[in-house]
């Protein structure tokens, strides 16, 4: 088996450098890589903030942190509904304005509040400030910390599910291409069947029957993806390799089917499989955020969960007033998925020589 181990060590060296130069030249790939590195840094830096004491855990923990931010507001008396416009307010919606609070809101708690007094109240959710770069959510938790936590979840989920699905699909696709006949027919029909299943409704049903944790979801996505349409793509790639003369040469030399498959076909299918993996990550991230948004995922914190909370707390339609509750999470999902997609396109250029400009 020493051919295999030696070959594994050498696979990257000769072409890696050349491929890296090619990849670098591709703008899309560069942008994508930059985005991914950015989010990866976010994911990695968060524990460092905690360990170094820069962020006290009781305040900045994304799930159980709490910052008792307080704000002082002036008590004002708002005119009755038919008395607008007044000197200060154009419409009913303008009262109370920023820094003000209506006396009717305060009265139940502080019956003897007078107009002009100052009222201290907790400021949740708080807008971005020096201490909280992206503000806090309605429970007083730091949003930036939550983004970093979500980044960790996204990467972990993405990689586990993508690796699993691509690993399974590559194996099955290569077997289908190489063995042909009934094995191939069965695998293709199986793949067709799984392709037919609509992913989201299926996940909804599964989530209803079983409380998913992140790694459960990763497993399910990985297996669904692995047995699905990817097998067909890998098989077509493997078929192209199978008819190359060097595979015939290996057969004539006397290699067993298994050996030829693992040492000749798989290494040549691997680059394309890597490409599919990158696209698989985007799918996984989207699936997670969708399920979390629907409240179906048993997870402490993720980007989808942030948007779910924003909705259940009623802030989602408050427009840009509470933008830090929705925009960072939404944009993170979009950008990270987009980043992986762009890297995939960049890789496509490297592995598909016909697409290259020169």
């Amino acid at each position, binding site marked *: 088996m020493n*051919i295999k181990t030696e070959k594994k060590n*050498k696979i990257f060296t*000769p072409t890696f450098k050349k491929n890296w130069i090619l990849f670098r030249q591709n703008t899309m790939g560069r942008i994508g890589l930059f985005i991914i590195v950015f989010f990866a840094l976010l994911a990695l830096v968060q524990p460092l903030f905690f360990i170094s004491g820069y962020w006290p855990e009781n305040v900045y923990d994304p799930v159980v942190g709490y910052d008792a931010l307080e704000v002082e507001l002036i008590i004002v008396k708002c005119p009755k509904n038919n008395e607008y416009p007044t000197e200060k307010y154009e419409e009913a919606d303008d009262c109370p304005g920023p820094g003000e609070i209506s006396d009717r809101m305060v009265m139940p708690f502080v019956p003897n509040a007078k107009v002009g007094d100052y009222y201290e109240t907790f400021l949740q959710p708080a807008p971005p400030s020096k201490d909280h770069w992206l503000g806090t959510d309605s429970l007083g938790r730091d949003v930036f910390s939550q983004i970093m936590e979500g980044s960790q979840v996204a990467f972990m989920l993405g990689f586990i599910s993508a690796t699993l699905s691509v690993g399974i699909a590559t194996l099955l696709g290569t077997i289908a291409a190489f063995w042909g006949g009934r094995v191939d027919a069965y695998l293709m029909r199986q793949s067709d069947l799984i392709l037919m299943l609509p992913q989201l409704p299926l996940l909804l049903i599964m989530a209803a029957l079983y409380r998913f944790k992140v790694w459960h979801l990763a497993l399910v996505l990985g297996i669904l993806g692995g047995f699905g349409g990817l097998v067909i793509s890998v098989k077509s790639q493997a078929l192209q390799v199978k008819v190359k*003369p*060097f595979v015939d*040469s*290996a057969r004539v030399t*006397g290699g067993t089917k298994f050996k030829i498959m693992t040492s000749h076909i798989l290494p040549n299918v691997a680059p394309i499989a890597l490409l599919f993996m990158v696209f698989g990550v985007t799918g996984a991230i989207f699936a997670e955020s969708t399920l979390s948004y629907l409240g179906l995922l048993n997870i402490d914190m993720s980007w989808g969960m942030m948007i779910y909370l924003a909705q259940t707390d009623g802030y989602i339609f408050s427009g840009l007033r509470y933008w830090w509750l929705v925009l960072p999470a939404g944009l993170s999902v979009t950008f990270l998925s987009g980043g992986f997609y762009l890297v995939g396109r960049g890789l496509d250029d490297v592995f598909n020589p016909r697409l290259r400009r020169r």
Partner: protein
Amino acid sequence: MNNKIVEVNDLVKYFDVKSGFFTGKINEVKAVDNISFEIAKGESLGLVGQSGCGKTTTARIMTLLEEKTSGSIKFFDSKSNTMIDLDEIKDEDIQSFRSQVQMIFQDPYESLNPRWNIKNIVSEPLNIHNLGTESDRVEAVLEMLRTVGITPPENYLERYPHELSGGQRQRVSIARALIMKPSFVICDEPTSMLDVSIRISIMDLMLNLAKDLGVSYLYITHDLAVARYMCERIAVMYNGKILEIADTEELLSNPIHPYTKRLISSIPIPDPNYKRIKYELDFTEVNNIINKSKKTGMIEVSKNHFISSNDFSDDLQ
């Protein structure tokens, strides 16, 4: 005494042309249509024909890459010192067959795995057949690389195919094919994709190796001039059949079959003063011979010179 290394009799390969999933066979492509020939030990036979005549299919059948439809292929097994019919070969003997019959392919760019280094490529046969220790194998690879003209061999062990030129890659293919000292090698147009100025050096290498190692060749090519350089006997193939087979110089100076005559007269000559005479297809001589002989299969016209007894006058007009 048995002097043969390979004997092919009435080899047939039909490909079925199907249409759709449920329709059966609608047509047959007769890729190889009843061919027979022998190759003696140490001899090289050229299989010459235009594209689509069935010569590559024949090669693939003889190396068990494709299954034949009918016919027999016998080869001389050095282990048992007898002629073994490939139909009767047992699974455990197939490995022995593989170590004695090898193939060199046409495309130097696609016949080496781009992800393997030269050492792994050339030592793969030894690994598969479990011969020697690791250091023995490296020694054998170095020796073989030296023999095929890749020097200094140590510099090339860790290199990859894309770092070598076409000619060097083909030499590596030859090294890999011959490292197990096979007795029979099938060469499928190994020089047609190489530059003209380096073809002869590769062909000379193969001729020398044949002499030194006692290897017999089946040399497949569409170029009659190349076949003349490499082979002692030539078989002319057309549409899956062998039309004529004879010793090389006999075939070139005394072709009988009109197809052979036309083939020879169509080849451009590298001499501007030479006037080629265009040959018009004329089947009278050959039909006379066929009718007189009343045999089927191959008819012997003179010593070791055979022509096919089938009537091709319709196919070729």
